[in-house]
């Protein structure tokens, strides 16, 4: 089984083949079953040390990785930027090398700069798992999205997936695009023209600015969190106008096919990108995504952690 996987790091989905992605999803099947047992723990990473190194704040992803590692019997340390020596001016490289000197086996990195996981992976013996780098990639989020689609629909090839929202600044969107295209899905990006530049078409996807034309044909809609903080003010006029043009309102949800899946990487803004009733409706698989995230992250830690030794 191991010959199907030979990477110590998971940096992004762009560098993975369709076979490697599928192999992770298959491995996650086995770990999903573990979560249903009375004793939800296996000894796969016993004696290994995993460091959750979150230079950018995160609760959801960090908790998911921590729980995944605990269920694999690894020892887990959590470090945040404010509590690390980065706050004292130490470089990322030095901080990471210090962690390695303490015999950390797996480093899960969340960082605001695109490429930070590559940077560390090239310099460390330890496994580096990208838990989100700037607007670049968030591979485990995309893998859990793929897992959820595959679980609910049986396949990914041939499905039409609409990703809606702030694509330009979204690492979730990029990793989803790479994974979905490799696995044969048709992808349409939807959002304001300033946040969904046409340049994305060169990645093998379609771009639309008319959500009402896209929703009736979609098998999956993946809504991204929309924010209007300081650096976004030049990109769109405001939340109200965003919701009017691109929000998945109760009315718009009627355009969807009955079996269309509604996904969201969270945390959701109820009433902004998605109406509350829609988020809690029968088509929503948002909480399945969270559950599946655990299985997918167990699979990733197991596979990469096994190579690093």
């Amino acid at each position, binding site marked *: 089984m191991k010959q199907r996987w030979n990477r110590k790091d998971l940096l992004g989905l*762009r560098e993975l083949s369709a076979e490697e992605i599928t192999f992770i999803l298959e491995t996650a099947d086995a770990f999903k079953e573990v979560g249903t047992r009375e004793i939800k723990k296996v000894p796969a990473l016993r004696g290994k040390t995993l460091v959750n190194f979150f230079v950018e704040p995160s609760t959801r992803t960090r908790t998911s990785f921590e729980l995944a590692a605990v269920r694999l019997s690894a020892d887990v340390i959590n470090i945040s930027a404010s509590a690390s020596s980065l706050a004292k001016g130490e*470089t*990322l*490289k030095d901080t990471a090398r210090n962690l390695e000197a303490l015999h950390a086996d797996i480093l899960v990195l969340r*960082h*605001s*700069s*695109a*490429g*930070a996981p*590559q*940077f560390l992976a090239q310099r460390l013996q330890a496994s580096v798992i990208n838990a989100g*780098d*700037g*607007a*670049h*990639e968030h591979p485990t989020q995309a893998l859990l999205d793929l897992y959820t689609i595959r679980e609910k629909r049986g396949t990914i090839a041939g499905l039409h997936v609409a990703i809606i929202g702030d694509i330009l*600044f979204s*690492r979730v969107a*990029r990793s989803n695009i790479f994974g979905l295209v490799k696995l044969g899905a048709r992808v349409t990006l939807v959002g304001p023209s300033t946040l969904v*530049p046409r*340049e*994305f078409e*060169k*990645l093998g996807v379609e771009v639309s600015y008319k959500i009402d034309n896209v929703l009736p044909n979609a098998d999956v809609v993946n809504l991204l969190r929309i924010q209007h903080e300081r*650096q976004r003010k030049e990109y769109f006029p405001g939340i109200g106008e965003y919701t009017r043009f691109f929000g998945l309102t109760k009315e718009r949800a009627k355009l969807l096919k009955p079996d269309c899946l509604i996904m969201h990487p969270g945390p959701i803004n109820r009433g902004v990108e998605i109406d509350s009733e829609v988020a809690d409706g029968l088509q929503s698989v948002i909480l399945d995504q969270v559950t599946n995230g655990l299985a997918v992250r167990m699979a990733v830690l197991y596979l990469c952690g096994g190579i690093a030794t």
Partner: protein
Amino acid sequence: MSATIIRNGRVIDPANKRDEIADLLIVDGKITPLSQLSTLNPQPDEIDASNLIVCPGLIDMHVHLREPGFGHKETIDSGARAAAAGGFTTIVCMPNTSPVADNPSTIAWIRNRAAGACVNVLPTGAISKGLAGEELAPIGSLAQAGVVAITDDGHCVQNHELMRRAVEYARMVGVPVLDECRDYNLVGSGVVNEGYWSTLLGLPGWPAVGEEVIVMRNILLAELCDHQVHCLHLTTAGSVRLLREARGRGVKISGEVCPHHIALTDEAIQSFDTNYKMNPPLRAQVDVDALLEGIADGTLSVLASDHAPHADFEKEVEFDTAPFGIIGLETELSLFLHLLVHKHRKIDIVRLIEMYTVEPAKLLKLDAGTLSVGASADVTLLDLDLEWTVRADEFQSASRNSPFDGRKLKGRAVRTIVGGKTVWRL
């Protein structure tokens, strides 16, 4: 008396339209007529330049020597040695030092240091106080202190009114204005060319229009004020088009190209190697093609390095946070020879030498860049066909931040002579 004769070289002196196999006589640091050879006693030292090109010492009008303030990156002394090793006898250093070169005493300090350097080091002064873009630096006093141009390089004056007054004032005191063309609002936090690769990698984009808007501004102000404005390190097809049109109308605007902007495209950034991070960023192939055409038709008239040393520990960080810039003095001539003369055949060796001598000398009104009788004997010897491999660990520069380490190139300087004295040889 000291005398040297350079024998049997191909002497190329574009200022005098000279290109012939000849001997070049240097007496007491000056270019001297060969007719005086018989009167010399003792006979001069001989340098055999067979199969070599003998040309006026090259000028790089855009380097950062980091002193005062950042001696851990480069010093005037180490930067001058790097220049000599690259074939340059005159370099022009930028004012973004600490303190900023916006006052006569800092210029005096730089000139004092430069006096001990192995090549001619000429300072520029700031356009605005502290490079802040808010009020004019004492441009007249800077000119009196010996700056050859004013520039806020490393920054760009955003206030068009201030820039207009700077160009008008610079005209009065007789110094050209050099400008890094970068609109802060359009560029924002951009670190790489806005295009396919920034979209793919999620790195903040630095759009071409962020350069072109300021190129257009500079064209309009050069025209309004009837004074020379030089656009540093141009990178985009749109900039070339704007400049071509303006120069065609006789506007006193000029543009410069750095070797990395034609040697590389933004595809290189997918490695997240910060030696591919510079300002302006590496662009797309269409831009590279336009720059090559701009060089071929004379729209872009100056070649320069934008030599920007940074210490390893400063560059070896996350891509977003790494400082912009790469070193270039020891690779630029070879890259341009390799790419412009050998590979793409866009210009011949005579024009290349002209772009490194006559053009910057004219722009900055320097008494340099020619082998005329009586000129200071600043001479570069080139081997046009020498194949070699770049070794960053052998650089004279105090820094190593070059993306060209290990690259095989054809053509390089083999000896650099300043004031009749050999300051470097291969």
